[in-house]
């Protein structure tokens, strides 16, 4: 059984059908990168996986459990599935430590005595141990995004979703975030990414999924997909992304 099973998912916003029957499996430990033009439905698909959006028809299962916005243990489910956003979404009124420890404390994952040690641990993993007492506003975009990743790691998720996490960053800050993600990939974290970073997709991902017009248009290992795209749409996308 795959960790994530997506079966014929349809999703409509108003009159626009954004997902037109998407099916996809992601195995445990796999790094799957979703690429495609804006409006191809890749971010929507990602948001459906942790029930930020609910699907109209079809179904999504994570660890065998059917995902939807009204599932009985939605909160528990979301503790197992981390998501990192394009705009970081750190809580501006909380210092870095509290940003990280808030959810583990409130959900009872850890007690107060262990909170700081947990924050130190996950911050070390993203290379920001010295920023534990900083306010989010005092950090650069790249640092904020790494704290956002650390905040997810503190929940010890089984699956991490990344929604264009480098798109809002200055070019010189992209590398530090990708490096952290690469390290996580090496440690065996299951990851699904929506990204425009073709270099990262090529070098780190096990599989590339090209979405086009609300469908999975083409997928396969990066080496094959980039070298020999089967569809003209992917070929033209790769050409334009270079």
């Amino acid at each position, binding site marked *: 059984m795959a960790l994530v099973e997506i079966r014929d998912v349809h999703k409509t916003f108003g009159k626009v059908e954004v997902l037109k029957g998407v099916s996809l499996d992601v195995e445990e430990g796999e790094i799957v990168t979703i690429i495609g033009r804006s409006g191809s439905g890749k971010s929507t698909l990602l948001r459906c996986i*942790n029930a930020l959006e609910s699907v109209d028809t079809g179904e999504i299962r994570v660890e065998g459990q059917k995902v939807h916005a009204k599932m009985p243990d939605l909160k528990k489910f*979301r503790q197992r599935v981390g998501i990192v956003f394009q*705009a970081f*979404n750190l*809580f*501006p*009124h909380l210092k870095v430590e509290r940003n990280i420890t808030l*959810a583990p404390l409130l*959900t009872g994952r850890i007690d107060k005595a262990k909170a700081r040690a947990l924050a130190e641990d996950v911050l070390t993993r993203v290379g920001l141990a010295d920023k534990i007492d900083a306010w989010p506003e005092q950090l650069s975009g790249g640092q904020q995004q790494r704290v956002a990743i650390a905040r*997810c790691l503190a929940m010890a998720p089984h699956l991490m979703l990344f929604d264009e996490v480098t798109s809002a960053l200055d070019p010189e800050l992209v590398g530090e975030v990708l490096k952290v993600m690469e390290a996580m990939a090496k440690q065996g974290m299951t990851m699904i990414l929506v990204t425009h970073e073709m270099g990262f997709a090529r070098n780190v991902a096990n599989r590339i999924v090209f979405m086009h017009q609300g469908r999975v248009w083409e997928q396969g290992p990066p080496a094959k997909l980039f070298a020999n795209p089967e569809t003209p749409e992917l070929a033209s996308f790769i050409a334009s992304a270079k």
Partner: protein
Amino acid sequence: MNFLPLWRYQNQLIDGAIVTLELTVISALAGLVIGIAGAVALKGRITPLRWLVRGYIELFRNTPSLIQIFIVFFVLPSFGLKLPAFEAACVALSLYFGAYSVEIIRAGLDSIPRSQIEAGQCLGLSGWQVFRHIILPPALRNAYPAVTSQFVLLLLGTSLASQVATDELFHVAGFIESRTYRSFEVYAVICAVYFAMAMSFKALFAIISLAAFRWPRRR
């Protein structure tokens, strides 16, 4: 001009000022609770409750607060709710302050981006936890300046409670004036007292703001 005849009334003046402060602080705290609860109800999914809150806001913001105090003091007793003057004034002023607070706090809640709420939900927090820890603190910071200026208006508005014979500052002034016939002096003095109280609260609010909202503003 002669302020000397007022000297022997200093204890009454101090007592009046204390009652004014009590009226203000009690009504403000109760009104703030109404404000937060009302704002939550306005953003909630229960439609009849939203109508109720909306009706309450419009009623209290579009009628004279003097009449609101009269209704609580003179009219409610015929429905079996008899309150002493001070309590009646507190109830009326709380509802008055609450009506303004609801709108101010709702605007504060609206100022928190949807993405902040999503980030909290995605960490597995409950609706209440997201509200309490992620939405409310920055929302209160955004609402704070408007709430504090409304507070000063409330402080000045407590003088209306004199009309149901609450022994607050303005009522005491009327009493002293009737004894001394020194209208200008009496009202000059209580005007100065109101001014001093308002300015002191402003200073206090500035200090509270520094202590409570320590995180840097978004650049």
